[in-house]
Structures are given as structure tokens and as C-alpha cells.
């Protein structure tokens, strides 16, 4: 498999302006050296807490946010400095599904118009109506009943289906999904996750799937990247992700997720991280995680860990003191 998307040393910094003269007094380092690759046909899951930069990453990938430095390559071609015309061509192959199904649809546009919008933008207006109906059927909406309705007549889950129909309208290769199920009710979330999986098979799609919920990522992703404060802490394959997680942050996240199983819940030892996420405007020196890390030493305060390949194929960990097998046995089930 070849890499469809490559992200190389990506930085996105937002200036902080203050005073009457609006002088730049600092930078919020939303992304601070991200390296990722996404292979054709796979789902890369990106997980992290609020403020880790995962949404900025999504926006950078689809070209909505210009990076400060670094490169993003689609099919081998870099596009961070692309002109709007080049981006127009690119977006035919790259679409996005947003988190909030209430604000991402125009309330005055009929569902059919929302879904037809990308087709019109790319002048694919031949058999427009039948194509829109076909798309609605693909995402599980009833074209006869729903065609001319407005977004407010739909539930959250149905709106997310409309958003997905719009994203797949141009038959893109890559879809970036930014927390697409986190605003949905539990029973509806499963419908949408199943839909994502069915469409991937049917249309041969590649996903970058961003979520804060590790259980969702564990379910949908082929590979997982864990982000913290603008950096990738650990990357690995889904199959080996839990059993071999070596970064203290990954392990803390894994242990923080409540399991819907009372016996397992009572049996396991939970790592409770102290403190809160530091401000990305003033990230800690050295390893960004050291202020909350249970294993941090003086060394971590001054040295920045580089992602290194570990025992399991495809795993990379950015930590000086990865969690060993013995320690792991105590905290996993």
C-alpha cells in the first residue's frame, strides 16, 4: 500500500496579539512537529483531549488552515503553498465531515440542495437529481420522503448522514472526519459508525478519523495516533495498540476510559493523572507531558523525546521512559 497522505514536520502557530498596537506577544503552538502517513484504504484514528490540536490538524489537512511550516503531501504532491485553483482540484479528492450536524448545514437549504452543492461546484450537474437521490440512499436516507426537506426537520443522526452524503458526493479518496459522532446519542452513534464502515468498503475510502473517545477509535481505526499538546506521543496498529501501549500518556488514557463492565471496572488499577492540560501558549519545556507524567524525571524537563520505533511493527513512541511489560501487566486487565 502506498501513502495517500503524508504529513511532514507540520507546525501551526497562532499569534497572540495584545495591547492597542496589537503586537504579537507570543504564539499558541497548536501543532508542533507532526509526522503522520495515511495509507490508501485505511483509517487513521487520531485521539487526544481537548486542546491537543486535533481539530487544527483536520483543518490543515483539508487546506482550511495554512501551516506555519512543514509539508502535507497528497498522493506525493505537496499542497501547503498551493494556489486556490490547485486547492479546488485537490478538494475533489478530499472532503471533510464536521462534528456538529446542527451548524454544518445551511438551515435555509433543502437537503437535496446541500448534497448537490459540491456537485454543482465541480460542474457535475448531469443527472443531478438522480445522483443526489442515489447519494441519499447510500447514507440511509429515504430520497422520496426526505428530498425537499429542510435540516431542522431532521434528527442529529440524520443530519450527520446528510453531511456524509455531501462529503462523498464527489467520490473523494480521502475523508477527514472531525469528531463526527461525538454530538450524537449513544444509540444513534452506532448507526453512524456502521455507516462509515460500510461506505469505506463500498467506495474504497480512506479516513482520517478524529475523536476524543478512545473506544470509538479502537472500534473504527486501523492505526492509532495519540496526540498531546500539539505533538504525537505514540503511533501504533489497532491490534497492538492496547496490549503494547508504551507511552505513559497512552496508558493513562486507556486506563481513564470507563468500561461498561462492572467486574472489570472494579478489578483494574486506574492511573489518575494529576493536574490539567497545560496551556498550548506556554507549553512545558522538554517533554510536553512531563508536568502530568507519573514517570517524569529531571531529565524530561530539559530534553525533548524523539519518536522512536519500538518492539511491535509500526509502533513509534516519543518517551524516555516507556512503560515496560511488568508495569503494563499491573495496569491492564
Amino acid at each position, binding site marked *: 500500500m502506498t501513502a495517500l497522505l503524508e504529513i511532514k514536520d507540520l507546525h501551526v502557530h497562532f499569534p497572540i496579539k495584545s495591547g492597542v498596537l496589537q503586537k504579537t506577544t507570543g504564539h499558541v503552538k497548536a501543532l508542533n512537529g507532526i509526522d503522520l502517513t495515511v495509507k490508501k484504504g485505511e483509517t487513521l484514528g487520531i485521539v487526544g*483531549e*481537548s486542546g491537543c490540536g486535533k481539530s487544527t490538524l483536520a483543518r490543515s489537512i483539508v487546506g482550511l488552515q495554512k501551516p506555519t511550516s512543514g509539508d502535507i503531501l497528497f498522493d506525493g504532491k505537496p499542497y501547503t503553498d498551493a494556489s486556490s485553483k490547485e486547492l479546488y482540484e485537490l478538494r475533489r479528492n478530499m472532503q471533510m465531515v464536521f462534528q456538529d450536524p446542527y451548524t454544518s448545514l445551511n438551515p435555509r437549504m433543502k437537503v437535496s440542495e446541500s448534497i448537490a452543492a459540491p456537485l454543482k461546484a465541480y460542474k457535475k450537474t448531469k443527472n443531478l437529481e438522480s445522483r443526489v437521490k442515489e447519494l441519499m440512499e447510500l447514507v440511509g436516507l429515504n430520497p422520496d420522503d426526505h428530498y425537499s426537506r429542510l435540516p431542522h426537520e431532521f*434528527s*442529529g*443522526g*440524520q443530519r450527520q448522514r446528510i453531511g456524509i452524503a455531501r462529503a462523498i458526493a464527489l467520490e473523494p479518496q480521502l475523508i477527514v472526519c472531525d469528531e463526527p459522532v461525538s454530538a450524537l*446519542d*449513544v*444509540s*444513534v*452513534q*452506532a*448507526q453512524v*459508525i*456502521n455507516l462509515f464502515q460500510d461506505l469505506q468498503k463500498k467506495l474504497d475510502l480512506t479516513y482520517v478519523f478524529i475523536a*476524543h*473517545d*478512545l*473506544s*470509538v477509535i*479502537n*472500534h*473504527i481505526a486501523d492505526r492509532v495516533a495519540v496526540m498531546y499538546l500539539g505533538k504525537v506521543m505514540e503511533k501504533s496498529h*489497532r491490534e497492538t495498540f*492496547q496490549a503494547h501501549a508504551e507511552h505513559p500518556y497512552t496508558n*493513562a*488514557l*486507556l*486506563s*481513564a*476510559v*470507563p*468500561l*461498561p*463492565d*462492572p*467486574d*472489570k*471496572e*472494579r478489578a483494574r488499577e*486506574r492511573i*489518575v*493523572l494529576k493536574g*490539567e*492540560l497545560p496551556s498550548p501558549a506556554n507549553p512545558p519545556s522538554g517533554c510536553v507531558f512531563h508536568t502530568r507524567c507519573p514517570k517524569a524525571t529531571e531529565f524530561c524537563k530539559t530534553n525533548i523525546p524523539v519518536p522512536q520505533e519500538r518492539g511491535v511493527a509500526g509502533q513509534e513512541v516519543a518517551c524516555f521512559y516507556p512503560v515496560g511489560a511488568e508495569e503494563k501487566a499491573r495496569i491492564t*486487565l
Partner: protein
Amino acid sequence: MLEVKDLHVHLDTPAGLVKAVDGVSFRLEAGQTIGIVGESGSGKSVLAHSLTKLNPEPPATYPKGEILFEGENILTMDKKRLRSLRGKEIAMIFQDPMSSLNPVFKIGRQLMEAIQTHQKLPKKEARQKAVELLADVGIPDPERRMQNYPHQFSGGMRQRVLIAIALAARPKLLIADEPTTALDVTIQAQIIELLKKIQKKYSTAIIMITHDLGVVANLADRILVMYAGKIVESGSTANIFYDTAMPYTWSLLRSIPRLDAAGSERLLHIEGHPPNLIQPPTGCNFHPRCPFARDACLQIDPPLSECGTDHFAACVLSKQQFDEEKQAVAEQKGVLLS
């Protein structure tokens, strides 16, 4: 300690009468933790607010039922008694910790106010107690933090402050309405541990309202599952998770992605979405979405009936019938049985 009997809460909205809570009964013993689980619109928050009569009236009305707290009916209490009950004997924490704190007053002042409302204490002692409470809920450097405003606290810290305020008068019952939903998962873990610690230390009874089955699996002794204003299953935590007797609970457990699963299994697809409570379906509220539904479900609205030791379910199927049919449904839907 708390007994809710056949409680009905209606909301009179311009679109029609919403039967938000439709005949709910349950008991809570001192020191116990009950989890109330449901999706949005299931009536769980309206139920929680009813327990201290906090639903705005109008639109809320209480046409039927009783809420007995240590023998006193909260629904017929006079305003003065209700005021002294709220906060002192029953305290509440909410989902959004920012909107529950006053942004223009310092944390210390808000906390001292909560202490002095229920106890006649001189300022100095109230202050001392406020610092102790902040330390108790795990706020570092509490002396200095007393001088901060709410915006200077992060979400998790604000939730800790609210827990401190709730604990100020040593309530017998703490009602927590989705207290961790707005928080990150590592902060959620901190708050859950804190609630457990508090329960152990003060033996406060807790009613935990959430949509997250994982949260109640950890905290609750008993679980009530709500759907469309009704309790559809209730039982010990082990019963609900391992010996499920109601199709909704069963489906919900199989529709959530789990961290402790291989990840390759399919999630159960529950058709449609929760019903509109202005025009609920006929018969059982869950029948349009239920994989076990049959003709009888369109007519019969099954009452909550005993299906095991201290285990109740509202379904036309008996526990035995349900157990027999589970496997076929799991196979047909392509999901795991256990």
C-alpha cells in the same frame, strides 16, 4: 431514605404536552449510589430536577405521584422548608460547571456563602471551612485559589469547586446530573475517583445521572434505565450488565464501541431515534426500534415487573422468552451475544 412513587412530570410546551416523566417509582437507601442511565430526551434530567422540585413551573407540572425524603413529601412542601432542604440535605451538581458559578464573585466568597446559608458560623470559621473543603476536593493551594474568579479555573477544577459547594452542608444525598460529560477523559477519571472518595468518607448517597454506561458500571450499586420518560429496567449493576432482561438495555450495551473488545465486531444498529414524547408510540415506547418487537408490543404498554431477585423489567417478553430469543437476534444482527 428517598422514595419516589408513581411520579409524573409534564411539561406544557407550545407544541403540546410532554410527558417527560411518566410513572417512575424507585427507592434509595442511605449511603447507596444509584445510576440513572438514558439518552437525551429520556427524561432523566427532568426526573433529577424533580427530586428537589427545581424544574421551572411553568412549564413543569406534577400531576401525580410523591417524592418522599425521609417521610416528607417534597412535592407538597412549603417554600421555606424546600429552601432549607435544597443544599443542606439534598445537594446537586450539574453538567456545565461554568454556568453554575457566578462569574463576578470570587470562588471563596461563593463557597463561604454556601457554608453560611446552612450553618451559623462566624466569617473566620466559615473561611477556614471553605479552605478545608477545597483541599478535600483536591484543589492544590486552596488558600490562594479562594481569591480566584471562576474563569481562572479549568473545567475540571470548576467541577471540583461545585462538588465542594455541594458538600458544604454535609448533605445526605448528592444528585449529580451528567457531572463528567463536559470533561476530558483523564479529568473525568479524576472526578469519578473524587466522588468515590467522598462517598466513602461521608457516606453520602449519590444519584448519578448519565448517558455513559461505563461511568455507572464503575460507580453505581443499582441502575435504573430510562427510555421515553419511563424506567424500563432496574436492578443491581451486575444484573443490568450481565443478566439484562429488557431489549432496550440489551441493545444499548451492544451498540456502544468498547475499549475492551477486539474492535472488529459489528455494533448493533438500533433503528431510528428516541421518540417524540408529545406523540409517543402506541403500546411499548421502544417497539418501533426494538429487534424483539411483535404484534403484542403495539397494544400493550408493559409495566415494570419483577424478573429476578430485585430485578425489574418492562417488556411483554418474560425473562425466559427473552433469554431464548437473544441468540437468534444477535446472529441476525451480526453482533456478539456476550
